[in-house]
Each structure stands twice: as C-alpha cells, then as structure tokens.
C-alpha cells in the first residue's frame, strides 16, 4: 500500500462546532457528539489490543463497526484501524484539568 492511498483511505476527526465533531471517512462525514466520541474511543481501544488485533489479522483482516449510536457502519482495515486509534488518542490528548 503506498502512502497516498493510505492517506486517502484514512479516517480523520475534526471539530465542527464547540461540542460537535466529525469523523471523516473515505466516503462520508459522520457527525459525532462527545459521548459518541467516547464510545468510539472505547471500541477502537478494545479492537487494538494485541490479542484482538491478532484475532482480526488471523480472520477477516478487517472490522465493521457501528458509530454514532448505531446510525452508521464503518469498515476498517488494519492500517485504518491503527490510524484511527492515533487520531482518537490525539483528540483526547488536550486534557486540561484545571479550568482557569
């Protein structure tokens, strides 16, 4: 897989308004609320443990995943899955506990 298709097929997260987010997929843009983001984070983290990744690789080599309260179904191959995990980690990185 070359880098260009990798970027084209990857999933990205954008903030649209203050508390609305967008999951950009190769064929659509999915609006997400914060709780839906948290649920996506939980699912992706669950799918990217060493054990689960191994299972996926040894079986279909992709995952289908419901997002946004089961309104959308997304298709992820391993590189996309890992890229999305990174995206999400980045999204949650800006934790600022002390509100000034």
């Amino acid at each position, binding site marked *: 897989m070359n880098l260009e298709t990798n970027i084209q097929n990857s999933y990205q997260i954008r903030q649209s308004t*203050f*508390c609305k987010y967008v999951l950009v997929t190769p064929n659509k843009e999915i609006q997400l609320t*914060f*709780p839906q983001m*948290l*649920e996506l*984070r*939980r699912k992706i*983290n669950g799918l990217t443990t060493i054990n689960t990744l191994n299972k996926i690789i040894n079986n279909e080599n992709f995952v289908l995943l419901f997002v946004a309260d089961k309104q959308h179904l997304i298709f992820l191959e391993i590189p996309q899955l890992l890229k999305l995990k990174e995206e999400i980690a980045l999204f*949650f990185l800006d*934790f*600022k*506990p*002390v*509100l000034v």
Partner: protein
Amino acid sequence: MNTTAIRKQMSIHPDVMDLLNNQIGMEMKASASYLAMASWCDQRELLNSKAFFYKQAEEEREHAMKIFTFINDNGGAAISPNVTNVNNDFESLRGIYETGLEQEIAVTESIFKIFKSARKEGDLITEVFLQWFISEQSEEEDTFRSIIDVFDLMEGMPLKMIDERLPKE
C-alpha cells in the same frame, strides 16, 4: 461568548477514566464474590458471618456506583462491567475470610495505581475523589485482619462458637 461554555467536555483524564472503569468491574466482582461467601455461610447457619458478607456485597456495589456516577458526572462514559468467574466453592470459613482479605488488598493496590495515574496526569478531581476510597480500604483491610486474628486465638473451637465472636458488619 457564553462563559459557561468554556468548560471542557470532560473534566477527568481519559486514561484515568479507563482505570476507573476497570475499578467499577473490580468492585462489582468483589460484590459478587462476597455474595457467594454470604450464601456459603447462610447455608451453614453461620449467622454473623452471613450478615457480614451480605453487608460487604452491598457495600462493594455502592463503591462501584460511586465510581460509576463520578465518571458520568464528570463528562466521561461509565461502562457497565462484565462480571464472570465468580467462585462459589469454598473449603472453610477461615479460608473465606482470607480470600476476602486478599481481595481487599488487591483493591487497595488498584486504587493506589489509579491515584498515582491521576496525580501523574494532573487530574486533581479524580485524585480528591479517590481519597475517600483510600481511607475506606485501610479500614476494610483492618476489619478482615482482626477477624483472622480471632480465628488464630480460637483455633480448635467449634465453628459456630467462632462465628458468634465475629462482627456482623
């Protein structure tokens, strides 16, 4: 601009939240485990011990709920846990209390781990929240240790006589 909107979506750290969610599972597992112990004692008419473990089972559920509502109140996502592999097979009353103490020690260590993680991440809200749990754990461990002391003192006595000397809660 609306100043109240400046508040972040989530006021606890996401990694700390994951650990807190694991802790919910651990408390619920402890609750289920104490329930099994209560049943063992109940079936053998060990009245004080049965009351003790029914109470423990309830308390552990309360601990789980405390963490559960804490996560959601702070903008996170609390997860209802799977509770599996609950042991219902015991060999002695003393053994039950020893298992109880081991379980409490494991919970204490787990709480310490979350506390340290909260401190590392600068998550002051969780740090303060966990202080109650830390004192609670030291009391719980102390209760179990004193009960095991009673077994040591009364070694060889009939089980029901030992049970009568044990606390109901």
